[in-house]
């Protein structure tokens, strides 16, 4: 199954085979002509190309891939992102650094749909994210075209992780500087899933996870407070976890929800988030009061 890609670094055969034509899927490819790619290069061009073929990601003497580890550093500097898997709901919540007054906040959406049943949030280099998300969206449609079936969450996670890994083992490129949280429901079985990928190309499934800034504190919170939830409770858990490291308020958080019954990703309005945040604050205050209350009476 060869899919014609517009990225020159792909090793797959770019020939116009019957399958290639049938599977060809990309707005880029509508303007992409394989003939233009294969031209005879001069000796000077060959030498210049050779300089950039050397791998950037090489092993260190003690077995580390420093470029990958530096990429993980870039992730640690990115915005905090939380994902929680409930029994019938999956939630992604991302920290929104204060938007400049003149910026149209709707153009800087941090949680995106890959397909009707899959959503993604990421922490790290946003430009790298755009490229990865674009390829993932193409793959979702390509899979639908060739297999007449939507992707499973695990499939698309494996694909994205595979892409991230490829860029740790190719010449002249650097790894993607982002970790992704992928949520969704498998087609037909409608089983909810949450997966995480990182710059090294590893991926795993989680009940709840966080990535980006202060992800360790958020993960600790989730480990202490995670329980099987559904519906509104799952949303609350995700927001509570994010509020551990983010200033309170609807304008600092972006939340998106996907449920088993409905198709599509629902982005919560600022007002909705504010309501839930207020509920959480009230619960916290009540818990604090309960703790302080009884000792006074003794």
């Amino acid at each position, binding site marked *: 199954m060869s899919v014609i890609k517009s990225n020159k670094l792909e090793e797959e055969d770019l020939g116009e085979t019957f399958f290639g034509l*049938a599977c060809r899927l990309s*707005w880029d490819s*509508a303007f992409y002509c394989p003939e233009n790619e294969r031209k005879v290069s001069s000796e000077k061009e060959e030498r210049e190309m050779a300089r950039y073929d050397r791998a950037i990601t090489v092993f260190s003497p003690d077995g580390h891939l420093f470029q990958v580890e530096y990429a993980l550093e870039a992730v640690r500097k990115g915005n905090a992102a939380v994902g929680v898997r409930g029994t019938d709901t999956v939630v992604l919540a991302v920290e929104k650094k204060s938007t400049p007054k003149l910026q149209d906040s709707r153009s800087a959406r941090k949680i995106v*749909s890959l*397909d009707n049943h899959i959503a993604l949030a990421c922490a790290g280099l946003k430009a790298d994210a755009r490229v990865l998300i*674009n390829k993932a*969206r*193409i793959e*979702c*449609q390509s899979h639908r075209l060739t297999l007449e079936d939507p992707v499973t969450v695990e499939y698309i996670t494996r694909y994205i992780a595979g892409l991230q890994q490829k860029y740790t083992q190719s010449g002249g490129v650097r790894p993607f500087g982002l970790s992704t949280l992928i949520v969704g429901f498998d087609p037909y079985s409608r089983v909810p899933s949450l997966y995480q990928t990182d710059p090294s190309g590893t991926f795993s499934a989680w009940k709840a996870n966080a990535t980006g800034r202060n992800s360790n504190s958020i993960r600790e919170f989730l480990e202490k407070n995670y329980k099987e939830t559904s519906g509104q409770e799952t949303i609350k858990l995700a927001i509570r976890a994010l509020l551990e490291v983010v200033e309170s308020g609807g304008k600092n958080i972006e939340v998106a929800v996907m449920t088993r019954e409905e198709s599509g990703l629902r982005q919560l309005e600022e007002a909705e988030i504010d309501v839930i945040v207020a509920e959480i604050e009230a619960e916290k205050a009540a818990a604090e009061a309960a703790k302080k209350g009884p000792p006074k009476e003794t």
Partner: protein
Amino acid sequence: MECVFGLVGNGFAIVAADTSAVHSILLHKNNEDKIMALDSHKLIAASGEPGDRVQFTEYVQKNVSLYQFRNGIPLTTAAAANFTRGELATALRKNPYSVNILMAGYDKEAGASLYYIDYIATLHKVDKGAFGYGSYFSLSTMDRHYRSDMSVEEAIELVDKCILEIRSRLVIAPPNFVIKIVDKDGAREYGWRLSVKDVTTASV
């Protein structure tokens, strides 16, 4: 042999297609749906080589979906029609698709529209169009009775007139037709016109 035709009415567009899947002298099935929904508000009625028809329309549909995911808004009917035509034109002098397409869609700004795209990448925006041998009869019937801004009932009457004409005058007329409509509420099936139902031994 394959009959596809359509027309634009008042705030809606209707396409009708025969539902026979034919291979030489054998009728594989007589309930083959040749009108695919491109997205919530677009229909693509295709006729031609069975393999090309399915492959090409599905390819267009997935690319239209991809556009929607990438850009957060759906394509307009005109844009989708032009994309389709572009793909046919690119393939024309290498690996041509033998598919004729009538694309019907509804956009908020442009209203209902119908596009005629034939296998050599001709593109026309039309009020009524038809493909196949049936077009000799349906186009003439539509020319006679069509008025702009027809209501759904009037349009269906005209579609039924065309189907009747095809059935009575085309030597190997397809037995069954499917009619689909697209308007502000989306694209949906309107009905079937059956003259031959599937016969199984159980029902005989």
